[in-house]
């Protein structure tokens, strides 16, 4: 099974965000692979490994990482390769600076198609910088395949079908989808492995294809930004929480609060 995992290099979300006009400053800041993408890479690796050790289906096939971003995004690709992915594709082009989610989906779909036949494309539910959450669905549309969003568990993968559990507000859907398909996975779909030193050192030798827009037969017009950020404002500071003085009813009040938040 050939699996493609979309990975994104983002400014380290643990550091204060720096802006470059109305877009996030991406160069000259400390970057990391989007933490949400670790779950996608792990999901891809687990499916490949499960097929390799299971009966019937052969373990042939590769996990390919596909990313779009500046040259520094190579670090995100290498990070995924160090976890165990087989190869990478990085699309870098000055024209792509400030791209919106639609243009990104167009570029990634072209890169995925150029990479060859695929059975499954995995992405995180949303990026930890832009948070649009629209990429996986748009990507599926461009690729002309079904999309299953917010996958919280991969139940089985065999032949041409994938069975997954899909998170909903009050439970989950059990979904079977014919392949090829795109899925987006939530944090919690698995426990991403630590990159081992051997994996990190082997990652250096794994192939990464670097492509520009023209390699994908796309022009600047094809990826012109269609949405504009008109205004930026700071998020409101979080207000102090409610303090419950315990007069004997505090436990019940906390339980009500948790019920309201649908935590219990």
């Amino acid at each position, binding site marked *: 099974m050939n699996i493609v995992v979309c990975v994104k290099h983002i400014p380290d979300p643990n550091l204060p965000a720096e802006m470059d006009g109305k877009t996030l400053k991406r160069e*000259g800041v400390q970057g990391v692979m989007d933490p949400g993408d670790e779950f996608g890479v792990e999901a891809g690796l687990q499916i490949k490994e499960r097929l390799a050790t299971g009966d019937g289906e052969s373990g042939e096939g590769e996990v390919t990482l596909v990313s779009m971003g500046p040259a520094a995004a190579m670090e995100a690709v*290498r990070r995924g390769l160090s976890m165990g992915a087989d190869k990478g594709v990085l699309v870098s082009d000055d024209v792509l600076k400030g791209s919106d989610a639609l243009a990104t989906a167009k570029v990634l779909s072209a890169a995925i198609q150029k990479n060859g036949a695929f059975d499954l494309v995995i992405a995180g539910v949303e990026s930890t910088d832009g948070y649009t959450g629209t990429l996986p669905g748009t990507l599926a549309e461009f690729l002309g395949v079904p999309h299953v969003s917010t996958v919280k568990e991969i139940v089985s993968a065999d032949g041409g079908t994938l069975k997954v559990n899909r998170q909903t507000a009050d439970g989950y859907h059990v979904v079977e989808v014919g392949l090829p398909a795109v899925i987006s996975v939530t944090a919690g779909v698995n426990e991403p492995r*630590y990159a081992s*030193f051997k994996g*990190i*050192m082997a*990652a250096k030798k794994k192939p990464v294809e670097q492509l520009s827009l023209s390699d994908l037969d796309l022009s600047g017009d094809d990826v012109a930004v269609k949405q504009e950020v008109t205004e930026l404002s700071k998020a409101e500071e979080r207000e102090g929480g409610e303090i419950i003085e315990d007069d004997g009813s505090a436990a019940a009040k906390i339980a009500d609060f948790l019920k309201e938040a649908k935590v219990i």
Partner: protein
Amino acid sequence: MSTNPKKVTLRPKDFLDIDALLSPEERMLRDAVRQFVTERVNPGIEKWFEAGEFPREMATEIGAIGLLGMHLEGYGCAGTNAVSYGLACLELEAGDSGFRSFVSVQGSLAMFPIWKYGSEEQKEQWLPGMAKGELIGCFGLTEPDAGSDPGAMRTHAKRDGDDWVLNGTKMWITNGGIADLAIVWAKSAEGVKGFIVPRGTPGFTTRDIHRKLSLRASVTSELIMEDCRLPADAVLPGVTGMKGPLSCLSEARYGIIWGAMGAARSCYETALEYSKTRKQFDTPIGGFQLTQQKLVNMMVEINKGILLSLHLGRMKDEGNAAPEHISFGKLNNVREAIKIAREARTILGANGITLEYPVIRHANNLESVLTYEGTSEIHTLILGKAITGLEAFS
């Protein structure tokens, strides 16, 4: 000629942008250890330190990442450069000196002598399991009456037919009580020899040292050899004399140079955060001149100490680091780290003495780090001899 500086971002946690001096691979190795420490060491460390235990079950997790014997080639070891090994030590010790000590002893003191001086059979028998963390090793050199002067050791090995018979006691041995094998250095008719002593060998016992107020998340033990009989192939064939154990110490000391800066960084970052949120006289205490002076001194010494570590690491990778260079690093960085830990404690006030914050734990740990692997006094005298040509001790 000078150019106008670009607008650069100043980062309180990497002020001199030392990250930029690392290769992408070195950064990834470092980040992998940092993530492991954040997720697996930090949540449990207060408990382990307080209980006075090292979580042995974590040895295989540490091995799975590739931390054990990481700078050695082959036999299941990762084969990284010295800089990466140093970065790993820094991140581990930012968690706790006990974890860094575990990795130092396993990799540099137990695996290294087998890798460097062992027979092919010994390497194949022990190293892969040790790299995985399935087998734990320790290093027996120090004795109750032979610390800074290891040449005065009393432990001796006598030939009996093809066998060797060991007698003596080793003291202050990290990992001793949890070790599956000990590398024991003993005097023989031919000079000092290293022996691989597996746990369970008749005549070989260990006794843990309790009531420590430092390195509590680490096992420290006594090794006792009473007519401990070993076969001929237990001896490390590749070395005779004190250069055997001393070469191992030089490896481990190198890791400490980096590790000490990890403990210091943890103290500095804790004090920095605390100073911005703790208010006295209606002002965050970080706004007071005296506190700023403390924080700046810490930050300056940490950046200098990490630059020194990196410089020594690059020298080591090029084969140009002499033991005296390593002494320079250990002397400076541990001395500064302990000062930083104590200074950070003062910023935290009374909170600084509790285990709620890492500072007093690091300060206490560093008391051991200052003494083990060559005391600061011995490193000073090694450097004194190097620059004067005159020996203050022999």
